[in-house]
């Protein structure tokens, strides 16, 4: 056990003999926001519910602040949980919803009132006290739910897809706001989401789950730049995965990698061992740009433009290499013109836009 505030140790959980969690171990340090990322069915919500005490793990232990808590009933854990559909109490007003946890803790009435006003101000809903929760918009309900779970000063706040029920535009706007509020309060938080952008934006630390196991964890940027499994790479939106044929010469900060595209220089830290074959070369979508002088320099890939769609800040293009491999990139619209469909294209791939992924971790 490390010095984490929350430590989840080898948790297993099955429903109807269907394993959902298969040996989960990770820690959360004081004040950190940890994003639990995974596709639906990866077990992230179940993991959250186990930590909240709403489900009993079949095996394993959960430690909090040095105490084992997995037999403590949910109401005695002092955690907060924000549900995806908010689960606001429909028969109570906004203020009564926010005050609920405080009443459970036996706060005196005037302090409850003060705290409720404080929390509503924090989430930008001043004066909403006596509103009916059913009359609120989705975004407002989300804020009330956040205020309600933060009000009793939980030792750990869990958020289960808190923005999942909102439309894209509202989601983007609230994302930074939620992170701002969590950081302002300084609460230790576990944030469950299936959206990698959300996980990147909100988490100090990212835990990637797949089929009930942790696939990878680390700082969001590092996890994105250095996926450790093909699943992780694909989940982060990397479509260009090329079978590595062999490694070529190794330099201080890179390695020459042979794939169907020919040799490419890939940035690789000297202290890191090369993954053993079979392995994949992952080319991130932002790793390439149109080569102005294709005849000079390395890492140029030639092909035919077969798809090209304008997306505002970038063009989403598909280029067919003569080996038959399709490559998909997002190339910036500033700078060189984007060749038309059917034209031949020369792309230059940045060495640090690629990563080697072992077939089996």
């Amino acid at each position, binding site marked *: 056990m490390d010095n984490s505030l929350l430590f989840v140790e080898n948790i297993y959980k099955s429903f109807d003999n269907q394993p959902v969690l298969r040996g989960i171990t990770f820690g959360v340090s004081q004040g950190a926001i940890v994003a639990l990322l995974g596709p639906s069915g990866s077990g992230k919500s179940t993991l959250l519910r186990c930590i909240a005490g*709403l489900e*009993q793990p079949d095996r394993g232990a959960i430690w909090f602040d040095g105490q084992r808590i997995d037999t403590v009933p949910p109401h005695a854990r002092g955690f907060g*949980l924000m*549900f995806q559909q908010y689960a606001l109490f*429909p028969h109570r007003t906004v203020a009564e919803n926010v005050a*609920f946890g405080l009443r459970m803790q036996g706060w005196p009435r005037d302090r409850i009132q003060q705290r409720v006003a404080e929390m509503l101000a924090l989430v930008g809903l001043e004066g909403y006290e006596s509103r009916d929760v059913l009359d609120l918009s989705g975004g407002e309900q989300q804020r009330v739910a956040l205020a309600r*779970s933060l009000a*009793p000063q939980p030792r750990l706040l869990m958020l289960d897809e808190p923005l999942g029920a909102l439309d894209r535009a509202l989601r983007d706007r609230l994302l930074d706001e939620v992170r701002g509020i969590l950081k302002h309060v300084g609460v230790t938080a576990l944030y469950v989401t299936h959206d990698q952008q959300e996980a990147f934006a909100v988490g100090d630390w990212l835990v990637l789950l797949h089929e009930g196991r942790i696939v990878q964890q680390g700082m969001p940027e590092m996890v994105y730049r250095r996926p450790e499994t093909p699943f992780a790479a694909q989940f982060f939106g990397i479509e260009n995965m090329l079978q590595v044929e062999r490694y070529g010469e190794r330099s201080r900060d890179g390695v020459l990698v042979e794939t169907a595209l020919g040799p490419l220089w890939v940035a690789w830290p000297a202290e890191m061992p090369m993954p053993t074959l079979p392995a994949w070369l992952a080319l991130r979508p932002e790793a390439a740009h149109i080569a102005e002088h294709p005849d000079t320099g390395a890492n140029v890939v030639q092909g035919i433009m077969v798809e090209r769609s304008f997306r505002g800040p970038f063009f989403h293009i598909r280029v067919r290499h003569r080996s038959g491999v399709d490559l998909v990139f997002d190339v910036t619209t500033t700078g060189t013109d984007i060749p038309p469909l059917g034209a031949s294209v020369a792309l230059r791939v940045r060495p640090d836009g690629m990563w080697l992924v072992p077939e089996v971790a």
Partner: protein
Amino acid sequence: MKQERWGERVGRHFLWVIPLTYLLLFYFYPMWAILQTSLFPEGHFTSEGIVGFIARPYLWKVVWFTVWQALASTGLTLAVGLPTAYLLARYRIPGKSLVQALLTVAFVMPTVVVATAFTALLGPSGLVNDLLMSLLGRSEPVVVLTGTIWAILLAHVFYNIAVVVRIVGSLWRHLDVQVEQAAAVLGASPWRLFREITLPLLLPAIGAASLLVFLFSFTSFGIVLILGGARYSTIEVEIYRQTISFFNLPLAATLSLLQMACTFIVMVVYTRLQQRMSVPLQLRRAAAIERPLGGRRAWVAWGLLLAVLAYEVAPLGVLALRSVIVEGNLTFEFYRALDTNPTRSVFHVKPSIAVRNSILFAFATMVISLTIGTFSAYALALSAEQRHMAWVRRLFDPLILLPLGTSAVTLGFGFIIALDEPPLDLRTSPLLIPIAHSLVAFPFVVRTILPVLRSIDPHLREAAATLGASPWRIWREIDMPIVSRAALVGAVFAFAISMGEFGATALVARPEYPTMPVVIYRFLGQPGQRNYGQALAMSTLLMLVTAAGFLLIERFRYRDIGEF
């Protein structure tokens, strides 16, 4: 290694042990006694009851009459109810909620009250005959409908329009008009549109409503007993007559078995249909569909609506009027008479005692039904949530339906043959009546509470738990406030059902504890204007109590919970 707290497990089993014990004692045991009396009267099997049944052509006539009058009632009710449902569902009509309230008031009226009201309207000395006699200058009644099939059918339709309007209308109101508009754009004429789009979509609702109307008419007791006179008898009435008049218990038991089989089959089909109805179509907000009523059609529509209204209001209005107007003068003589006990009276007690009895029984019924009903609803809701409890639900769900599918007279008959000897000798206990009534009423309580209980998002309880609420606190803070309105509605339902219940009461009520419907029935059986007047007065009182209960229900009804 699932750790379930011991208390929780006991609590959960407790939930269904209580209603189960109650059903075993007061439902299955009496039903078993009926089976025994019919097939094993001397402890061994005998076909006497069945042979005796088959050998009497008279009984075949009873069965045939029961079936065809129920079919005729259903057909007539649909003929009046469907157009009414359509108008109320699709048009913006002022006073719509009043119309719907009146229909439902009619539906919840006790059978004895409605039967008495129809005698006051259509009987030999009823309002219609009074008017016709003075118009035509005749001294003999012109058309006497009481004692004919027409009075029975009219009363059945009077009751059941509400069933059709509520069940079919509520679906019709929310059908997606865009589907119909799509069909119209594709070239469907109004008639084809109705036949190919609307009707198929409404069919499950029409089926369910028809079955319910059929069931109510099939098991009709008070209406047929009072309005049909000696000439007509349904299975239900025949069970009563064989028991009370001829004391032929094996035959009554055989009839009860037949009645149980028939009603149960109808109930099963109804439940199936209802489940199909709950498969959600794309439903729309009602306000978006309503159109204003205008043009030539408006006259037809208003004519129909007013006729239906008059039909629903006239009998009850005449009942109230006739109870206070004698030969053109306003008098409360009949009401005063209820509080006297003349020596020649047919009762041992003042009729007004029956009012007190009825209210006490109704309170007792309310408490029992609410207790059993709430436990049952929780047992059903919890077993649905937990997959390993699914078998409880599979077992328990139909068990709760059974009493609903059992006619009141059958129930009363089972009581008097089962609960009259040790170990359960309740023959002389006044508790017998509320227990019988609660068997009729508690399924309604379950049906009112269960949908609300199921509608509580389980996340609400979990949210409360993570905010620090203990299980008991969760129940008090989340379940209680949400369920209490439904429970209140269920309670008033139980109260009203008990006040008006006649079928079971007619068999189990002791002379020393008469209820209001029993007293009304006895008054109707006595000659003389004074007795009839007292029947009118007592019926009017019962009508007012029932209507008041209904208004209470409407006030507390939470969204659209609990259809019949």
